[in-house]
C-alpha cells in the first residue's frame, strides 16, 4: 500500500470535531484503492468514518453518533479526463472547486456548482452535502450536472454509475442518490460532469430596496421578461457581500449570457424597478464574478460564535411569507435577522445572531423549535459547534423516512459511514 503524501498542514483531530465528537484519527489516503482498503478494514473493525473534503460544509447535519476516523480526500485531487471538445470532465472528489473552475476556465468552460469558499470546498463535499446555490434555477442543481460517479461503499466495494456521455439511460442513476446523502451511503471518489461554455458576459446589478416599498417592488419583479441568473433580495450581510448600506435592503441580480442578452436584461430590470419607484441601479461588470462569489460565501459565513444560519426551501410563490416568518420569529426571540431571499429558487437564507455569544444558545434553541413548527423545510447551514446537538439540523423528518432507513441499512449495515449525521438520525 502506498504511503500517504505528506502535507504541510495536516489538521488535528480536534479541528475536525463535530458537535461533541472528536475523531481518534485523521487519515488521508493517497488514492482510491488505498481509500477502499481502508474503508473496508475499518468497516470490518466496526469503526465509524466521516469523510472530510474542505470542511466548508461540515456545518450541515447532526454530529455523528460514533466518530473514529476522519477520512480526508485531500490527496484525491486530480483532473482525470478533460474532454473539453465533448464538454465533459472527470475529476477526483478531493479536487477543490476553485481548481475545477480554473481547469475549466482555460478552455472557456464552467460547471456552476455555486460552492461557498471555492478555494477550500471540494467537488465531493459539494455533491455529498447536496449543496444548492442560487444559479440552479438557470443551470440545474449540482447533481443535474453530474453524468457519472464512482464511489466506495462501506464494505470497500468500488462501484460506478453513469458514464462520460451527456445523455444516458443505462441502469440506475445512483449518482443522484449519493448526492445529498452527506456521506452516509458511500464515499464519493470520482465525479464526471457535463460542462457549459462560459457566458460571454456576466454582470451584477445592485439596487436599494427600502423597507416601505419592499413588497411592491418584489411584486413588480415577477413581470421581468428575461430571467436573471440570480435575483435575490438581501437584508443585512452588510460587509460580507458588497459593503453597502445595511439598514435598507438591496436587490442583487446576476445576468449571464451573450452581451446583447445582458444588456436587454439590464434594461428590463431597470425599467421594472423604475416603475416600482426604485431609481438607481449600480452595475458591476469587471468584478461580477467576485461579487457573486461573495454572495455565495455569505450563505455559510458565521458572525463569530453568535450566529446560526438556516436555509428554508419551498416554492418561490411563498418565499416572502417564509421570509416574514423568520422576521417575526427573530423579533419575538430577540435575535437579529439577516436574510437572502432568492426569487428564482424560493430559498430563504436566514442568519440569526445574538448581540453577544452568551445569549445565543437560549434564544436560538427556542427559535429553532418555533421555526420548525411554522415551516416544514428548514435546514441549519452553519452554527457554532456546541449548538449542533441542540438544534433540529434537518428540520422535521422527511416523508418516506422508512425507505431511507432501509436504504442506509442495505448500503451500510454496520453504520460505518457518518452514522447519525443524516436526516432522522440515519
Amino acid at each position, binding site marked *: 500500500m502506498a504511503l500517504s503524501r505528506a502535507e504541510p498542514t495536516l489538521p488535528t483531530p480536534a479541528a475536525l470535531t463535530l458537535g461533541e465528537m472528536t475523531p481518534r484519527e485523521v487519515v488521508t489516503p493517497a488514492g482510491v484503492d488505498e481509500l477502499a482498503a481502508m474503508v473496508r478494514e475499518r468497516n470490518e473493525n466496526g469503526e465509524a468514518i466521516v469523510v472530510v473534503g474542505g470542511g466548508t460544509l461540515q456545518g450541515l447535519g447532526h454530529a455523528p453518533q460514533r466518530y473514529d476516523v476522519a477520512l480526508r480526500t485531500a490527496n484525491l485531487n486530480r483532473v482525470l479526463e478533460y*474532454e473539453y*471538445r*465533448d464538454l*465533459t470532465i472527470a475529476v477526483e472528489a478531493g479536487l477543490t472547486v476553485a481548481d475545477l473552475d480554473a481547469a475549466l476556465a482555460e478552455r*472557456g*468552460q464552467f460547471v456552476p456548482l455555486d460552492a461557498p469558499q471555492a478555494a477550500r470546498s471540494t467537488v465531493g463535499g459539494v455533491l455529498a452535502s*447536496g449543496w444548492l446555490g442560487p444559479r440552479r434555477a438557470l443551470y*440545474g442543481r449540482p*447533481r*443535474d450536472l453530474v453524468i457519472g460517479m464512482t464511489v466506495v*461503499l462501506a464494505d470497500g*466495494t468500488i*462501484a*460506478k*454509475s453513469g*458514464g462520460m*456521455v*451527456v*445523455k*444516458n*439511460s*443505462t*441502469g*440506475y*442513476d*445512483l449518482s*443522484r*442518490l449519493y*448526492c*445529498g*446523502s452527506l456521506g452516509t451511503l458511500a464515499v464519493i471518489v470520482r465525479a464526471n460532469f457535463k460542462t457549459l*461554455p*462560459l457566458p460571454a458576459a456576466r454582470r451584477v446589478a445592485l439596487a436599494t430596496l427600502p423597507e416601505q416599498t419592499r413588497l411592491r417592488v418584489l411584486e413588480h419583479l*415577477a413581470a421581468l*421578461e*428575461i*430571467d436573471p441568473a440570480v435575483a435575490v433580495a438581501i437584508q443585512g450581510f452588510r460587509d460580507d457581500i458588497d459593503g453597502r448600506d445595511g439598514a435598507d435592503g438591496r436587490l442583487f441580480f446576476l445576468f449571464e*449570457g451573450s452581451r*446583447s*442578452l445582458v444588456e*436587454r436584461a439590464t434594461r428590463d430590470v431597470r425599467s421594472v424597478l423604475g416603475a416600482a419607484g426604485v431609481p438607481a441601479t449600480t452595475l458591476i461588470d469587471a468584478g461580477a464574478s467576485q461579487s457573486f462569489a461573495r454572495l455565495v460565501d455569505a450563505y455559510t459565513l458565521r458572525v463569530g460564535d453568535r450566529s446560526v444560519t438556516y436555509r428554508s*426551501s*419551498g416554492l*418561490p*410563490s411563498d418565499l416572502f411569507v417564509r421570509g416574514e416568518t423568520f422576521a417575526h420569529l427573530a423579533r419575538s426571540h430577540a435575535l437579529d435577522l439577516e436574510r437572502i431571499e432568492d426569487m428564482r429558487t*424560493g430559498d430563504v437564507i436566514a442568519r440569526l445572531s445574538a448581540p453577544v455569544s452568551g445569549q445565543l444558545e437560549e434564544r436560538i434553541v427556542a427559535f429553532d423549535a418555533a421555526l420548525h413548527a411554522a415551516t416544514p*423545510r428548514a435546514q441549519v447551514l452553519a452554527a457554532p459547534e456546541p449548538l449542533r446537538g441542540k438544534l433540529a439540523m*434537518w*428540520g422535521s423528518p*422527511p*416523508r*418516506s423516512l422508512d*425507505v*431511507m432507513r*432501509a*436504504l442506509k441499512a*442495505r*448500503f451500510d449495515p454496520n453504520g460505518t459511514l457518518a452514522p447519525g449525521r443524516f436526516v*432522522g438520525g*440515519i
Partner: protein
Amino acid sequence: MGRVSTKRFQERLVDALGADAVRTDPEDLAVYSFDAFSEETLPAAAVLPKDARDVSAIVRIANELEEPIVPRGAGTGLCGGATPTRGGVVVSFARMNRILGLDVPNRRARVQPGVINLELSKHAQPHGLFFGPDPSSQKISTLGGNVGTNAGGPHALSYGSMTNHVLGLEFVSQDGEVHQISQDDFGYDLTSALVGSEGTLGIITAIDLRLLRVPAAVRVCLAAFGDVETASEAVSAIVGAGIVPTALEIMDRTITQAVEAHYHAGFPLDAGAVLLVEIAGEIDDIDASERAIEKIAREHGALSWRSASEAAEREALWASRKGAAGAIGRIAPNYYIQDATVPRTRLPQALHRVDEIARDHALQVGNVFHAGDGNLHPLLMFDRRIPSQVEAVIAAGTEILEACIALGGTISGEHGIGYEKRDALRYVFSTDDLATMARVRDVLDPKRIFNPDKIFPSGAACGEVRAQPQVAVGAGAWL
C-alpha cells in the same frame, strides 16, 4: 402459475377494482403483451386504475400472491420495457390521464402518469410555458413512461432529459403504501432514483414536473453535407466552439429521402446528410448565433444553408425529423432501431463503424440521430420473414453497442434497457456496479415483482433466447 391461481388472481383484482377496470379475456390481453420492441407472454390480467388507491390495491394483491406487476404507458418503448415476461398484471394508465394542476407562478405542473407528453406543453402554452423533454413519440407516449425510461428527445441537448425535469413523485411501494416524495425534501433523493428505473422500484401515480418559459424567438436551420461523418465533425466543431444550440440533429441520405417522400418539407435529396440546428433565445442573439454556427458549418463542409423562422416551416422540419422512423416503412418491411451514446467527438468514428457493421451483415442502415448529444439511432432494415436477416440484425445491433462502448460510450441514451438490452448491461457495468444498483432494488422491490426481467442481466438464466425484434412499421415506432 397454474390456472387455478391465475383465476384467483383475476378474481381478487375484479373484487378490488370492479369488472370494468380489469381485462382477462385473451383477446383483450393480447394488446398488453407487446410494445414497440417485441411480443412476450400474455399477462394474467390487465388493469385500468383510476387513482393511486386503485394502484395501491393492485400492488397489495400482486404482492400477496407474488405476481409480477408491469406498468405500461402508451407502449411506445423500444426495448421491451412494458412487456410482461412471466404473466402477472399489466397496469395501464389510460384512465390516469389528467393534468392535476398547473402552477404558473412557480412554473410547475402535477400530472397523472397517463398524460401524453405533448398534451402538457399544449396545456401550458397559453401561459408562456412548455415542457422540455420531447421524445419523438411525444404525440402518443405518456409522461409516466417518459419518467420510467428517462426519456430525452432532440431538445435534451439544451434542456436535459426527464431526470432534469421531475421535481417530485407520488408512488406506490411494494407494501401498497402511497408515498409522496419531492426533490425539495431533505434526505435521500428518492425522486431521482425512481426516474429511469423502468418500473422496477415502484409504481408512479403522480408526477411533479418543471416547466420552462417559451423562448422569445426560435429558428431552425438546415445544412447539407456530403456525408454523415462530415456533418458530425461540424457538430463537434460547433459544440467545441462553445455554442450549444437547443437541438442539433442529423439525418443521412436514406432517411432524408424517406421523410421527404412522406412529408415534403423541402430537404435536399442529393445531400449525403442534413443537419438540423435549432436556435432559441432573444431575437438579436439568434441572428448572431446563426451567423456563428453557419460559419463553422461551412468551414466544416456544409454545402448549403437554409434557415426557417416561420412557425409553419419549422414545424414541417420537426414533423419530418420526428416522423423519420415511421417513414422508413416506405423502403423496408421491418426495421430495428438501436440507441447508444458516444462522446460527441467520437461520432464520426461511431458512424463509420455502424456503416462497416451493416455492410458486414449485408444490411441496409439509415442514421437519424441526436448529434449534439452524441446519441446515435442507427435503423437496420430487414425482412423478418427471412430468418437469416433477423439473425443478422441481432448480431449487428450487438456489434454496434460494443463499438460504442469501445469508443467510451454507453448502450442507451434515452430508450432505456428494458428486456432487450439487459444482458448487454454487463458490457458497461461490472458485477460490483450492478450489485450496487441491485441494493436499491433490494429495498424497494425485495420480491422482484416490479417489472421483472427488465434492466438487470438475466444472471443464472442467461441461456434464455433473446427476444427477436418484431418492430411494427409506421406509427408504432419512434426514436
